[in-house]
C-alpha cells in the first residue's frame, strides 16, 4: 500500500484514502463546442501512459476530498511529489532515484 502526501492536508496518508483520477494537465478547452475532431480525440482519448514519470490526478476521497496532482514513477511506484490542483507542472523534480 502506497503512502501519498496530500498537499492540502500536508500529511502522508495510506493509499486507501485516495482515488486515482487519471492523467493530469489535460486542459479542457474554454471553447469546447468549437473543438475539432482531432483536438477532441487528443483531449478525451489520448493518454501518455509512460514507463517512468507520470503526472496524474488523485483525490483525497476519504480525507479532505480535494483533487490534487502527483508525480509518480510508474516503474518504482514511488511518488516524487504532490501539488495542488491548478498549480503548473513542476519544472524540477526532487531526487528521482533511491
Amino acid at each position: 500500500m502506497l503512502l501519498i502526501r496530500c498537499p492540502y492536508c500536508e500529511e502522508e496518508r495510506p493509499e486507501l484514502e485516495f482515488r486515482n483520477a487519471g492523467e493530469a494537465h489535460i486542459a479542457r478547452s474554454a471553447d469546447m463546442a468549437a473543438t475539432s475532431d482531432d483536438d477532441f480525440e487528443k483531449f478525451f482519448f489520448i493518454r501518455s501512459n509512460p514507463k517512468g514519470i507520470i503526472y496524474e490526478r488523485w483525490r483525497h476521497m476519504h480525507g479532505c476530498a480535494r483533487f490534487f496532482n502527483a508525480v509518480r514513477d510508474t516503474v518504482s511506484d514511488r511518488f516524487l511529489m504532490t501539488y495542488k490542483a491548478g498549480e503548473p507542472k513542476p519544472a524540477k523534480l526532487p531526487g528521482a532515484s533511491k
Partner: protein
Amino acid sequence: MIAAFRIPGAGRLKQAETARFSFDGQSYAGVEGDTLASALLANGVHLVGRSFKYHRPRGFLSAGAEEPNALVEIKRDSARKTPNVRATVQELYDGLTAQSQNRWPSLSFDVSAVGDIASPLLSAGFYYKTFMWPKSAWKNLYEPKIRAAAGLGVAPDQPDPDHYSARYAHCDVLVLGGGAAGIASALAAAETGVRVILADEQADFGGSLRFESGAKIDGQDGFAWAQGAVATLKAMDNVRVLSRTTAFGYYAQNFVGLVERVSDHLQNPGRGLPRERLWQVRASRVVLATGAIERHMVFADNDRPGIMLASAARIYLNHYGVAVGRNVGVYTANDSAYAAAIDLKKAGVGVAAIVDLRDNPTGPVIDEARALGIEINFGRAVIRAGGKLRVSSMTVQPKNGGGERTIPVDAILMSAGWTPSVHLFSQSRGKVAFNDETKRFVPGTYAQDCVSVGACNGTDGLSATIDEAYSAGAKAAKEAAVKNAGANAAKGAKPKVDASESWSRGMLGAAPGAGADTTVKAFVDFQNDVTAKDIRQAVHEGMRSIEHVKRFTTNGMATDQGKTSNMHGLAIAAETLGKPIPQVGLTTFRAPYTPVTFGSIVGHARGPLFDPTRKTAIHPWAERQGAVFEDVGQWKRAWYFPKAGEDMHAAVDRECVTVRKTAGLFDASTLGKIEVVGPDAARFMELLYTNPWEKLEPGRCRYGIMLREDGFIYDDGVVGRLAPDRFHVTTTTGGAPRVMNHMEDYLQTEFPHLNVWLTSITEQWAVIAVQGPKSRDIIAPLVEGIDMSDEALPHMSVREGKICGVPTRLFRMSFTGERGFEVNVPADHGQAVWEALWAEGQKHGACAYGTEAMHVLRAEKGYIIVGQDTDGTVTPNDAGLDWAVGKKKTDFVGIRGMARPDLVAKGRKQLVGLKTKDPKVVLEEGAQIVGDPKQAIPMTMIGHVTSSYWSENCGRSIALALVAGGRDRMGETLYVPMPNGTIEVEVTGMVFFDEKGERLNG
C-alpha cells in the same frame, strides 16, 4: 512414560509435562513445547506423508517453515479442519488430532504409488505433452483423474467458524527475524528509545541459537542469552515483541504484512481469542534478519523417510531432546553437518559414518568428530539410499567412481550448505547479487529503506553477525529518529560473543551419484516431485531461461516456494546450459513467504460485515408490513408488499392498478440528493447538465440529464430550484456517489472560478412519493403553509413548508404519469410522516408499492432508468431526450462529445417501445432482436430488450428496447429468437399508457 527416541535430560522441554495426541488414528504421547514433528519423531515415526506426483513415502526434511514433505491435516472438529499444515511448525497441544494426506487406503500402502513405477510417463512437462488429445478428454477424463491422483490436502467443506482480527501498526524500526542478528538489532534500536517491533515466526526466539550448541554470548549459552535479551525487550515500553508471527509480504514504502498465529497452538482457545491476527505495519526502517536455510544433498532416493537436514536433527536433539535415529549417517559438503554428528554422538546416538564430498577439509569440528571416534570419509559421495518407508542404508562410493560400500543406517543427515533467506529483501524490489566465491545470492541493490543483517546478508560467524546487526539496528534507529523526531544515544552495550560456530560454503546442484549421466530419482524439489533429471530434461527440450525451466518442471512452485530447491535447480540448469549461474538468473520471490490463510486476509470483512447495509428511515415500517426487499447497491429497498396468499405477480399487479385508480405510497428515500448552493449555482448547473437552468424560476423543477465528456448519458434526475442560489438535485439511487465525485471534479479542477458548494444530502432527507389521482387529497390535510392547488403548485414545482409539523420540501412531480408528489422530510421524521400519510391514504384505499411496481408504472409511461435502458453508449438523442438538451447553450459537459461523427450518424440504436404480437408473452430483458428470423446463424443482431414487464393496467406485456434506427421502424415487425421459439414483436412508441399525459393533472 518417556517415548522411545526421547533422550532423558536432553533438550529444553520439561519431559514430565506430557501431551497426548493422535496421528492417523493412533494415539501417542508428546511433551509440552513439542511440535507435531518432534513429538512424532520422539515416537520413532518418520513416515508422515505421500508425495504430490509419485506418491512416494515421505518423512521430515526440516524442523521449520521450509518443510516441503510433512504436510498433515489438523482437525479440531468437523468445521475446523486445516489441510497442508507443516508438522514442523504445528505446536503440540493435548488432544491434537492429525491425519496424513494424499494416500489411499493407508499411508504405508498407497495404491497410487504406481505413479512411482509409471514415472517415466510423468516426467517434466508431462501434462503439456501427454494429455493433449482428444480435446474433450481433458475436461472429462484427464483433468478429473489427475486432480484425484495428485494434490495435497482436502479443503474444509464447512464455513470457517473461527474469527480473525487485524491490526495496523507504525514503528520506527521493524526487525524481522528473532535470531541472534534480529535480537541484536532490536536491542540496539530499542535502547535509543524509538518504537521497535521485533517479530519471529517461531514460538521461541533464538533462530539458529536453538540448535547451535557451540554459541556463547555474554558468558551464557546462546539460547539462554536470546531468552534474556527478549525478556529485556519485552519489558521496554517502546518495544513490541511478536512471536509465532511470520512476515509474509514486503510491500511498497516499508509496508509489511505479518500474520500472528494466536491460538493454533492452544488446546482450548478461548472464544474471545482470534485464530490469527493480521498486522499491517508501516515502518520507517526495516531490519531484515531472516537467516539462512540449509540445503539438502541431491542424490538417488534422497527423499526416503529418515533423510533430513543436519540442522533439523540438531534442533530435534538440542531443543526437543529427540534423537532422529539410533544409527545415523551424515552426508555433507560443508562443516556444519559435523556439528550435528558431534552433538548426536555426545548424546549417545550411534554415528555410522560421515561422508564428505570435499577432498581434504580441515578444521576444529573435523578434528573433534575424529577425536570422538566417528568414521570420516573424504572425497566420497552417497550414491543411493536404501529402504522404502524408512531409510535403511547409504551406499558410498569415491566421488570419481570406484568400489561401492553399503553402510546400514536408520537416518541420514545431510547438508549442502546454507542459502541466505533473501525472500523479503527480494519482495521489497531489492536486487540480489551473486557472490561467486561463496556461491550464493546476497542482497545487492536496495530499493527501500531496509537493511539485511546476519546470515540473510551472507555474513558468516556469530561474532561478525552480532557486530553487523547491532550497528545496523543503531543506525536504523538514528535514521528513523531524524525522520520522526527524537532518539537518545544508545545506552546499552553490544552483546559480546565468547564462542561461535562457523558454517563454511558447501555445494550447489546434483552430487556425483546423481550426476549428468544418471536418470535416478534424485530430488531437487520434494514438494513438487522434481528431480535433477527433470531439470536437465527441461534444458534439453529447449528451456533456456530459469523462469521457463521453473514453469516447465514446476521446480520451486509448490507451497514451500522452493526454499530448499531453488538454488539446486538453478545450479543444475546452469551446468546443463554450460553457463555461469548469474547468467541463468534467479526466479522472482513473491509474497507470501509461507502460506497465509484466507481467514487472516479477510479478517472481519465477512457475512454482514462484508459490505455496509443501508436502510431507509421507513424500512422498519415496510418490514412490519411484510415487504419483500431487494438489494440495490448497498441499499435494502422494499420490492413489493404481498398480501396474504399473493405471489409477487399478484402483488405487483394490485399495486400498479391501485396507484392508477386511487393512489400509492412509495419509499423513494434512496434517491441520491445533492444540494448545489452558491452565487454561481445556476452557472454550474448549466455546465454539468444538458438543460438550461439560468431561466428556471425558483419554485420550479426540471428533469435534468448529465452527460460525460464523451456525450453519453451518465445520470438523470429531477432538479428543483429552491432559490436563485440553491438547487436540490436528485440522482439515481446507484449513481449518487459517482455523480457527486463527477461534480466535485469539475468544480475543483475545471471550473474553480465558480463560487459553489456541493453537499450530499441523500441521508438527510427521507422521500415519500405519493402518486395517483387521490394523492393531493392524502397529503393536503397534513400540510401547512403550502397552497396545494394546481394553479399554485403545478406539475414540476417545489415548495418549502411543513408537513405534520416538520419541515418539508414538497415536490409536485411524477414518475408514474399520475398526479404525484414527493414529500421530502428530515430523515429522523421519515417514519412518522410516512405513518401519518399512510393513515390518510387508508381512507382513500391507497396502497404501499415497491420498486417492482415503480418500474412497471414508469415503463408504462416510457420513462427511462439510466443504467437499465441506457448502458453508457446511449446519447440523449438515442434515448429520445433531445428536448432536454439546451439548444442555445454554448457549453456543458458532453456538448462536444455528443457531436462526434459516430454519435450523430444514422442507424444508431435508439430507444423504442416493443409490443409482442401475443400480448400474453413477456419478453426477457436482455433478449436480442433480429430483423429476419430466417437468416443464417450467426444472425445479425439489431438491438436488445432493455425493460420488459407484464402491465396489468394495459392488459398486456410492454417492453422498451434499443433498436438500430428504431424511430424509423415504427410499426415494423421484428423478431426475438429464444431457445423455445421466435417471438414476433411490433416496434411502437415508448408511451404505453395515457399517451397525452392528461393524468398528470387527473
